[in-house]
């Protein structure tokens, strides 16, 4: 996850190097290593030019070996296996018994497709360094490269039992689960990530997207919360999260006309019930239920307005709103409703006065 400023600096250096400024190559390569981005073609091209130029290579000092490793990996990524082999040979001469160089050899065999030999190399290295996380991860990568996703998942789960603080591994596991369409398990991985780094907006975003994908009312509500968290953590700059909230709101919140319609219908029904002579006792019970339903709808309507657009809420609740409700009460008296009906509306007015300031 690279920041915008860092990416801009990287692009600038890349342009300089492409344009012929060889002196910036070392800085470019070092920034690529730091940000861990995958720009293999450029790295292989310019890195190799740097290594082949004795003056530039000597200026690097001891860093030259890191550049050898970087160019070897980039060359393998671009399928330039001869170049990679040359770099690895140079490194082996300098560091004959190194674990790190042994790993590069294993990677070269993977690139060639010699899976069993690569497996042997990693096993022998693991005998010496059983706790090297990179070797375990290479085994997962091999399984994935051969298309054995379930094997990769198993190996990665085993790795995470020991190295449970490795966030990149949790993310990779989530991706593997997503590609296997196992969304609930992927969501679990993101839960671990959020627990470990609660201020990272991208983990909240990933979790929200998974909840949305899994679906169901509760999950969609939770997804909206996580999208909102992403918006807050990213300062409103994350477009996916903004769109996520829009999608969820469109899916669930009925348009306001429908809300108003329901509201008016319920109030109308309340008034009508009150005036109908159906049988005193049963009518009162029915009226009671409908009256409370109307009240709840009114309160619900206000809340929806508040959620969506704070300014429009003021149309309903503060001074002008009070006047409107008071006039409704008066009209109720005019319609001749029973005492029973005045209570819900009185309750409503009381609530408005109490909570108007909060809104």
């Amino acid at each position, binding site marked *: 996850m690279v920041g915008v400023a860092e990416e801009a600096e990287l692009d600038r250096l890349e342009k300089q190097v492409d344009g012929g400024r060889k002196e910036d190559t070392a800085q470019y390569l070092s920034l690529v290593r730091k940000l861990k981005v995958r720009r293999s073609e450029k790295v292989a091209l310019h890195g190799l030019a740097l290594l082949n130029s004795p003056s530039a290579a000597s200026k690097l000092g001891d860093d030259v070996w890191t550049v050898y490793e970087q160019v070897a990996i980039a060359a393998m990524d671009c399928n330039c296996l001869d170049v990679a082999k040359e770099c690895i040979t140079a490194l082996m001469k300098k560091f004959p018994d190194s674990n790190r160089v042994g790993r590069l050899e294993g990677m070269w065999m993977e690139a060639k497709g010699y899976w069993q030999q690569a497996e042997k190399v990693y096993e022998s290295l693991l005998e010496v360094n059983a706790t090297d996380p990179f070797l375990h991860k290479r085994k997962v990568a091999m399984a994935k490269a051969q298309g054995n996703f379930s094997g990769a998942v198993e190996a990665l789960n085993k790795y995470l039992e020991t190295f449970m603080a490795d966030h990149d591994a949790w993310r990779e596991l989530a991706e593997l689960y*997503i590609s296997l369409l196992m969304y609930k398990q992927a969501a679990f991985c993101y839960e671990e990530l959020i627990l470990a780094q609660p201020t990272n907006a991208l983990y909240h975003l990933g979790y929200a997207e998974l909840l949305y994908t899994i679906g169901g009312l509760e999950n969609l509500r939770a997804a909206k919360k996580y999208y909102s968290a992403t918006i807050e953590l990213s300062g409103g700059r994350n477009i996916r999260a903004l769109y*996520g909230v829009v999608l969820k709101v469109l899916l669930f919140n009925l348009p306001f006309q429908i809300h108003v319609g329901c509201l008016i219908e319920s109030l109308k029904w309340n008034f009508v019930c009150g005036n109908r002579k159906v049988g005193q006792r049963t009518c009162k019970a029915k009226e009671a239920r409908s009256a409370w339903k109307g009240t709840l709808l009114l309160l619900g309507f206000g809340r929806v307005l508040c959620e969506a657009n704070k300014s429009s809420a003021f149309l309903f609740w503060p001074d002008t709103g009070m006047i409107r409700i008071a006039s409704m009460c008066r009209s109720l008296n005019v319609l001749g409703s029973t005492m029973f009906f005045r209570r819900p509306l009185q309750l409503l007015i009381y609530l408005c006065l109490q909570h108007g300031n909060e809104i």
Partner: protein
Amino acid sequence: MVGDNKYEISQRAYIKIVLHALKHQCNSVNGVLVGKVTGAGNEASEEGNSKIEIVDAVPLFHAQLGVLPMLELALSQVEEHLIADKESLVIAGYYHANERFDDYELSPLARKIGDHIARYCPQAGVLLLDNRLLSSLGKGGNKKPVVQLYTRDSVRGWRLGVDLSLKEPTANSILSDYISEKREQLLFDFDDHLYDISKDWLNPDLYN
């Protein structure tokens, strides 16, 4: 009577698909196909002699292909754009390119998305990028498209279908030219648009 639907892809769509895959070589990519369905018989049926012309392609994602919200968003935006455009084009298919070089199967995700699109357009086809054919493109003289077509059978699901014809025979040579001048860097997909909203997923300047 089962007739064969004929699928024809324009250069515009074909080149976009391949350039999208080449821009993101380390990921799987996907997108939708936009086109017209014309049929002699009943257009709503799967069988029958319909002709499906794929006019354009919209590149969608290169990361996190399996999650739903952005896919829904992209599909609705594409549909709205098509309605506003008034050229009576519809979403007529889906394309997918696998992450690994030697993976020639249509993944369950691609099948799922294809099923969804087929609900709206029963003759929809799914195109899968064929890496072997793509790597032999550089050797020249290849007139076949580098994508495989899958069509939907209500009984057996998605199967490798009939031949796809290229509308313009020069498509492969133009594609090779574009690849050598690295034109894929000018292509933006929906993911790029979500990262930086000024990037247009319609790619109006790609062929200039």
